């Protein structure tokens, strides 16, 4: 018996046969993850369809990120913020007008102004060494190397000696006025 078929008919017939031949599998207990994903897919369908019907309506698309991915992103953001806070702290500390001792992380000479009876000097020795000195009437002077330089630079000054005024040594340098005047523009 002859029949008339188009390519479309034949393809359709092929798929009908294929689907009819599929053995019915026992339906498993679907995972919670699958159920969650399907629910999300139905929500996505809903929002896409609504957008299609009314383009003027703005819907916030449901998040397509899994819980795991969102968690990872959050951790990355927190670590990033902590890093940025650290960088900001370091930047601010270094820009303070005083000395940050790396050994103890104490900042000295913040907003250095000479107290009453003291004079305030600033000068440079060589390319790097910047010294801030505060002198009183008894020729006792405190020298603070600026941030980024160790206190050892002060010992390069002739006839100076290092003293300890606290457990955080050395922060104080004692020397005579005449020695200092060689280096400071008094």
């Amino acid at each position, binding site marked *: *018996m*002859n*029949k*008339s*078929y*188009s*390519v*479309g008919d*034949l*393809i*359709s*017939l*092929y*798929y009908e*046969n*294929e*689907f009819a031949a*599929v*053995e*019915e*599998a026992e*339906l*498993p207990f*679907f*995972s919670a993850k*699958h159920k969650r*994903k*399907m629910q999300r*897919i*139905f929500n*996505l*369908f*809903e929002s*896409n*369809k*609504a957008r*299609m*019907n*009314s383009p*003027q*309506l703005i819907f916030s698309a449901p998040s397509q990120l899994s819980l795991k991915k969102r968690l990872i992103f959050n951790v990355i953001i927190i670590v990033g913020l902590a890093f940025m806070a650290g960088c900001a702290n370091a930047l601010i500390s270094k820009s303070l007008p005083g000395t940050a001792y790396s050994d103890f992380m104490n900042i000295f000479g913040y907003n250095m102004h000479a107290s009453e009876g003291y004079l305030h000097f600033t000068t440079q020795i060589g390319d790097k060494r910047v010294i801030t000195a505060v002198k009183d009437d008894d020729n006792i002077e405190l020298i603070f190397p600026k941030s980024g330089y160790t206190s050892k630079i002060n010992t390069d000054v002739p006839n100076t000696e290092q003293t300890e005024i606290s457990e955080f040594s050395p922060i104080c340098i004692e020397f005579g006025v005449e020695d200092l005047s060689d280096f400071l523009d008094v």
Partner: protein
Amino acid sequence: MISSALAILETDEERKELSDIYESNIKTFYSIAFSKLHNAQDAEDAIQEAFLAVAKKPDIFFSIPANKRVSYINVIIRNIAFVIWNKKHRISEKTAVLDDSIIDDRITTEDKVLSDVQCIRILKFIDSLPEGMKAAVHLKMNFGLKNKDIAEILGISEEAAYKRVSRALHQIKQYMEDINNE
């Protein structure tokens, strides 16, 4: 305001329709995926991917007559199951060894008078074609999808969809003519 509210109501009903289709036919969907993949997890994935493809393009879904929508999803699930299986077994889909020059918009799908025996032979020939090619031509011929829509549903480029449809039609037509000439 009223039209917006109606749109939302319509959407809700249509959404229900999609989830209803899922609920009512999940056994068939699962069986189709499982028959190829033989793995419950992979079958789950195939169903998810198919529904995701539908959800992304609701306009295509609603352009298909209601009585054909389940078949439409069946075809997508089957195609995705083949893709997953091929990926898992590192098999690249056979590409037609035809020259691009054979692609011709003028290919027609006029009716051919065939005997049942000839029909069975053609169905066997169709079976030998790559799954992606069969799915593309099925979506084109029986669901009336445009190449762009086929590309989006099958996750391929528009050009690839066009080539698949053209090559499949050309090969089937050629085979039908060969049979008629025998």
